[in-house]
């Protein structure tokens, strides 16, 4: 008992002795696992390479500076592609995710036993596959290029947007919907007057957030030939053109910073 009688005073402790022991034992197990894993990894590491790493890194950094600024003229087009891949992919994802979310949310789904599992399956399958892998598959299906990237980003984002959106739908205040129902509104009107206004902030937040993530994801899609700046990154690394690599990394950094700034602004404006 956390509360124990001792003479006239009641002694209170956060946990019972048993619970305290369990917590202590939990920590013990945790530490033991950590030590064991450390040993396992250390045995399989070639420590010579690791100790050598700082020197290698310094060497690579040296070869990276100064960035080859003139290469920028080649980069403008891929950067534009990258942003387009992210934006178009996000749009496709949103268009598909909205109906999926309404089908997946317990309070709006047309059928809990048939439609909802299908919607949830779409969400899970889209989320479980990384956009790089989607791109890999799509490049073999529809050939290399920006289109493969757009679709890959779109497919990956459906699950993300739909999942967050359906959670938002399930968390709405039912009283407001009930009030709309009580006026004699049809189901479509209940949706547009009772539910949609309540999820608008979440919807805007999710879309912009996903667009922001997609900018970052689309920078690597080129590695598998799905268009965008990753293509240049790949070829620069394989030709050991380190001054180009450093410029590309700087450009990616700048793009991401700008996208974060834009998404923060948009979110602020809408919510």
């Amino acid at each position, binding site marked *: 008992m956390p509360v124990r009688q001792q003479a006239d005073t009641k002694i209170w402790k956060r946990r019972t002795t048993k619970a305290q022991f369990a917590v202590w034992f939990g920590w013990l197990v945790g530490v033991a696992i950590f030590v064991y894993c450390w040993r396992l990894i250390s045995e399989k590491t070639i420590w010579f390479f690791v100790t050598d790493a700082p020197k290698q890194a310094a060497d690579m950094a040296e070869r990276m500076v100064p960035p080859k600024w003139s290469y920028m003229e080649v980069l403008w087009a891929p950067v534009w592609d990258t942003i387009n891949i992210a934006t178009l992919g996000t749009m496709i994802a949103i268009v598909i995710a909205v109906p999926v979310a309404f089908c997946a949310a317990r309070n709006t789904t047309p059928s809990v036993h048939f439609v909802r599992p299908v919607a949830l399956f779409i969400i899970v399958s889209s989320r479980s596959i990384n956009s790089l892998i989607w791109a890999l598959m799509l490049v073999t299906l529809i050939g290399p290029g920006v289109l493969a990237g757009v679709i890959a980003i779109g497919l990956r984002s459906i699950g993300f947007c739909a999942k967050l959106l359906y959670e938002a739908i399930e968390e709405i205040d039912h009283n407001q919907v*009930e009030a709309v129902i009580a006026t004699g*509104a049809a189901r479509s009107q209940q949706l547009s007057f009772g539910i949609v*206004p309540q999820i608008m902030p979440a919807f805007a937040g999710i879309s912009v957030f996903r667009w922001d993530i997609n900018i970052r994801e689309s920078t690597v899609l080129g590695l598998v030939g799905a268009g965008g700046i990753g293509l240049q990154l790949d070829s620069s690394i394989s030709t050991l053109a380190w001054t180009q690599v450093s410029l590309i990394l700087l450009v990616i950094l700048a793009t991401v910073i700008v996208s974060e700034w834009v998404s923060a602004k948009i979110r602020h404006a809408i919510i």
Partner: protein
Amino acid sequence: MLRIEHLDKQYKTGDHALKDVNLEIPKGQVMALIGPSGAGKSTLIRCVNRLVEPSSGRIFLGDLELAHLGSSELRRARTRMGMIFQEYALVERLSVMENVLSGRLGYVGFWRSFFRKFPQSDIDEAFNLLQRVGLDHMADKRADELSGGQRQRVGICRALIQNPDLLLVDEPTASLDPKTSRQIMRLICELCEERQLAAIINIHDVLLAQMFARRIVGLQLGSIVYDGPPENLNAEVLTQIYGEEDWEATIEKVEEEDEELDTAALLNIAKVHPPS
């Protein structure tokens, strides 16, 4: 206007919320439904507009039987019943005007409502009602910017713009301070008087019920245990509805306020029907 016959409601959880309730409310009557929490007050009015499905029994609105209507007839029937909620239940992120106009959803098609192209007559009526409750300058404000009393006024407008025959009012004052509570109750009663609406007002505040309603129904564990004028609510009846408590203070206070109210009521009647 409204007739409830042998209404019974048992929830899936096993709670027997209403047991063989019979009630009749004539046109223009404001009835207060009192009773402790869990007595079934909310369930009763929600059964009338079928936000809660009754287990058995029949409910007549005029000649229309409500308990077994199909979904499109039910929607049409719901337009004839305005509802006012405890926590106002305004759609927080819509404007005051949109909230009031949502009371017309049963009358306009989806696309018209989606693009907010309500008929001018609805918009005129919305402005009239907002003016009547003193909020016409707030039409453009978002609902979540309003105070509790103002929100409830918008809720009242939303119910009235339906042009209902019956008002279902669920604890209209539970989230309001005493002064605002009285103003809201007075407003509801005046509007019912003006439009000859029947109303069921769920209220747990006995004093307010006695002040404003001409008929009181006491509900206890899903059964009606009192049905009569407010004057006959004595300690014995209150004990029967709510259980053992010292009721003297409640009863005394009402008698004092009754006198005030009677004069007020007389003045009101004089205003509405000026002697010819």
